[in-house]
């Protein structure tokens, strides 16, 4: 079975631009969570979606938004990019929100 897949793997943007990251969960998993991981730190929770509804939001500005589609895939959007948004963005899926999470390989976002 395929694991969690994320695209793209790498992305370079400039300040002020907008970016969309994509995630496909493991088949049968209905919950998708998004994390930001800065080098040397633990993953920081951004959003959790379950059955297409937002169930949790971390301490991130409104520039960050997400959605989940009927097939349970998800997109993370970040507007007005700042240098500080440079990070590894990880998507994780689980059967439900409180179950162990399975992470994708992440999208490495660099802001110039």
């Amino acid at each position, binding site marked *: 079975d395929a694991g969690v897949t994320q695209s793209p793997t790498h992305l370079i943007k400039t300040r002020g631009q907008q970016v969309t990251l994509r995630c496909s969960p493991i088949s049968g998993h209905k919950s998708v*969570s998004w*994390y930001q991981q800065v080098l040397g*730190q*633990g*993953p*920081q*929770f951004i959003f*959790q979606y*379950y059955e297409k509804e937002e*169930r*949790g*939001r*971390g301490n991130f500005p409104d520039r960050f938004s997400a959605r989940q589609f009927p097939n349970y895939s998800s997109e993370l959007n970040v507007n007005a990019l700042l240098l500080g948004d440079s990070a590894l963005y*990880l998507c*994780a899926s689980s059967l439900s*929100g*409180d179950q*162990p*999470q*399975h*992470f*994708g*390989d*992440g999208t490495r976002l660099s802001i110039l």
Partner: protein
Amino acid sequence: GQQVMQIPQYQHVQEGEDFTTYCNSSTTLSNIQWYKQRPGGHPVFLIQLVKSGEVKKQKRLTFQFGEAKKNSSLHITATQTTDVGTYFCARHHTGGFKTIFGAGTRLFVKA
């Protein structure tokens, strides 16, 4: 608040030595999860502990959940170079819809 603190931040060991990382919370935990992230990789789920005083083993790895459910530990016996990576504990925020990761303990193993 609902943060989890991990110590040490990093540890260097000689191959064959033991290693322990600790995870502490100021509030009672409903459960604790442990993940391992290899350099350049993504976090991989290792185990979830739920019960007070629970001890679980996976080969050379021993996981413990404190009696008060405010702390947890991961012990690796006789480390190998394949154990290199960062070990994270993670808790669920009250309500279960937010997972909070610790800062991790990075393990270096010298052959």
